[in-house]
């Protein structure tokens, strides 16, 4: 489902808020195009209205199996079932980016994906980017160094987006960084120091 790249993700993003919760339950798997065998989900109680589905995925390097209501969003799985509350929810229209995680290495908005869509995938959240010994990821360190955060609520999403941004554009200009961060809202910093942090993070990630 990620074969279409960010555009495909965005298409889901636009579609989701307009679909009633019931209709997601009824038609989620086919409508969102989960076709690869690895992503196929197991439905346990096909006759009930709210059937449960069992998923297997990797989260922050650990294998996870979870049984969820099919309408469960990826961000709900991460926060409520896995207890990884560093991933935040700031909106209900897929536009703030507070929920950004890496799905198979690419930044996605976890509020715009059903948990089922992450079946078989590898998910990285803010809790999973530091080194095993606790040393912060260079991008985390850069945010601290440049005062790229204030209340911290947008921050995990910003850091995840920034890591993906630098992976794709290691030498992004200020203008390119600002454009790339379009999908992440921050109400505290005015973005000034976030941009600086991404620049510093890019430099240290390149080392």
């Amino acid at each position, binding site marked *: 489902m990620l074969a279409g790249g960010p555009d495909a993700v965005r298409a889901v993003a636009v579609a989701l808020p307009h679909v009633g*919760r019931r209709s997601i339950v009824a038609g989620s798997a086919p409508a969102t195009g989960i076709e690869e065998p690895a992503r196929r989900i197991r439905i346990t109680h096909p006759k009930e209205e709210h059937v449960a589905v069992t998923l297997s995925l990797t989260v922050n390097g650990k294998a996870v199996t979870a049984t969820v*209501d099919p*309408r469960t969003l990826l961000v709900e799985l991460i*926060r*409520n079932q896995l207890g*990884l*509350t*560093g*991933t*935040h*929810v*700031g*909106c*209900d*229209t897929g*536009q*703030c980016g*507070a929920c950004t995680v890496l799905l198979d290495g690419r930044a996605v908005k976890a509020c715009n994906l059903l948990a089922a869509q992450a079946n078989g995938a590898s998910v990285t*959240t*803010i*809790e999973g980017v*530091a080194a095993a010994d606790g040393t*912060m990821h260079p991008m*985390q360190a850069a*945010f*601290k*160094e440049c*005062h790229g*955060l*204030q*209340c*911290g*609520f*947008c*921050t*995990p999403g910003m*850091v995840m987006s920034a890591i993906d941004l630098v992976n794709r554009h290691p030498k992004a200009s*200020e*203008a390119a*960084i*600002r*454009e790339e*961060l*379009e999908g*992440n*809202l*921050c*109400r*505290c*910093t*005015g*973005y*000034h*120091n*976030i*941009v600086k942090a991404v620049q510093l993070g890019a430099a240290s990630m390149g080392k």
Partner: protein
Amino acid sequence: MGASEQGLIGQSVKRKEDVRFLTGAGQYTDDITLPRQTYAVFVRSPHAHAKVRKVDTSRAKAAPGVVGVFTGADLEGVGGLPCGWLITSLDGTPMKEPPHPVLAQGKVRYVGDRVALVVAESLSQAKDAAELVDVDYEVLAAVVSPADAIKPGAPVVHDIAPDNRCYTWGLGDKAATEAAFAKAAHVTKIDIVNNRLIPNAIEPRAANASYSRSDDSYTLYVANQNPHVERLLMGAFVLGLPEHKLRVIAPDVGGGFGSKIFLYGEETALVWASKRVGRPIKWTGERSEAFLSDAHGRDHVTHAELALDKDGKFLGLHVKTIASMGSYLSTFGSSVPTMLYATLLAGQYTTPAIWAEVIGAFTTTSPVDAYRGAGRPEATYVVERIVHQAAVEMGIPQDELRRRNFIRTFPHQTPVALTYDTGDYDASMNKAREIADVAGFAARKAESAKRGKLRGMGYSSYIEACGLAPSNVAGALGARAGLFEAGEIRVNPTGSVSVFTGSHSHGQGHETTFAQIVAARLGISVDAVDVVHGDTGRIPFGMGTYGSRSLSVGGSAIVKALDKIVNKGKKIAAHLLEAAEGDIEFKDGKFTVAGTDRSKTFGEVALTAYVPHNYPLDKLEPGLNETAFYDPTNFTYPAGTHICEVEIDPDTGVVTVAKFTACDDFGNIINPMIVEGQVHGGLAQGLGQALLEHGVYDKESGQLLTGSYMDYAMPRADDLPSFEVATTVTPCTHNPLGAKGCGEAGAIGSPAAMMNAVMDALAPLGVRHLDMPASPHRVWQAIQSAKKG
């Protein structure tokens, strides 16, 4: 001040709180899930104005997983949400204070008004059940603009205010102002709208309330800026709970900007219901709920006139404002367009006579209350837009007209109640002009013109009154609360320090700034200091964080508590060193007998206080733990000059902020990095107001048209430039830190600077008027209508 103090104060110490936020270890309200947790959803009015004929909860109550469904009828007897500031009208009558029910009683007055609370085992079940609450509405006409609301025949929002007027209030000297206009050589007039804003902290409001049968007490986790005030208002005024039976915890809070100061019905209903259902109840607002139900900001309609003599000296200012209260009086809603607005209309100028008249109007919209700057951005916008216009009309350069009217002697008594203690407005103007490269503007303008673009430059020399507030002054002006702050320094036996502050950090970095103050004074490391805030169960009674008050008031309380610690430490050291107390000096973490090398370290003294074996127990209590309350003697007056340069594409109407310079005087600064960050954030919100943001209700239906991030244009990274920020310093004269406050300046100064730049750019095309936000559509239309003449 010792070497270590000088080393820490004024230093950009990296923030102590960052690691938890950067690693996902922050604990925001929604991150907290309690044993036997239930989840709440509010049924909200889909109408702007309607009678509630009947609420039928029977289907909802029967839905799977439902634990309780409550309506206004269940809450009868529970008080309404109070307003914290009494405004008295010009005719001597008190403002109209209609009831503000926790859940609607008989009528709804804005889209999003709370009608019922549904509590269920899971959030999905609560949502499903909420859809089954049947409400029979009789729809009434809406009125959304404050100017329309006070017209005869407008739909009546509250029966106790048949003309929709909450108050008609005035400040200043009407006769003196009229006399000033009578002798004016020139009068400049403007009509402006200060656009409604929706605060949009990225963390939505959230609460989690629980009741304990064992001691008949409640605990409320809530995304809030001032937990003690929340507790006081909710406990004493609404639910009738004694304060010791209600603990309010505001854990990590994801931004506030004013919107989380207020006592809202949601958390109040949760606390009330938690006892009824006997389980914890969690509610987390969705963004669409935040748009509908968070208190909004601004929403003024103003006519202003400035009288000048032939040389451009300001003689008098007359301002008439209609301000929206929204549907109900929010916690501080009444004070924002009055006490926090009209008092600032002198700006940085010597204007000798001012008369301001403000009508507070009820409308069928979300309540309006303090949002970053609260009244002061509106005042600055009036003053700086009219000064700009006057300079244009009189052909005097913008900086020159301002300089001709700057206040230069202090203290300065304004005609609108305030006494400015200190400032140097020329200094910030000069520095801003230098950094903004005003000299190079003509060349940049010519270069833009070559590309077919219009370039303009605008000034805003703002002032604000912060450090809220001298309690007695505020009380005389109608405040129903004290406005001091509390600080407690608890020195632990082995010398580390826990600081308990009534201020609340929701992004401001108090855990670092306050730790710097303490570490510098006690000569210990910043890492040995922990700052605790946001929990009525742990901190002394405090007033919370808003109005840029935390450092000047909360920080001063900490300084006073530190004074007590040092004084007691001196007594202990004198005993240990067998010297007179008066001979003990404390410096760099050491108590020394003056003129000798005999000393005890701070750690030794702390340990002695808790292991008082060799101790003057007959004269001195053991322990090293001191609390102080600080009540300021005056407001503080941060001020500065902002200069904005815009480039406009006349074909599309797109405005680009090409350059923005802010030079501010915040008094003494503890952590420049944090201060700059505060300015950046304020600028983004101010430029957001001028360029993008506008909360719009449909005139007919009263529906909120800007109810999501698809319709409400939040500033994003590529809408803004990098900012040039600098400071000048005149220390505040009346608090021990000499600090003035920096949290709101950006949002106060920048809208006028940007709009003045837009007006400057469009002036050659004959555009005379434009309201915020300067969206491409509005700018393009202004250009087209100017073309038509």
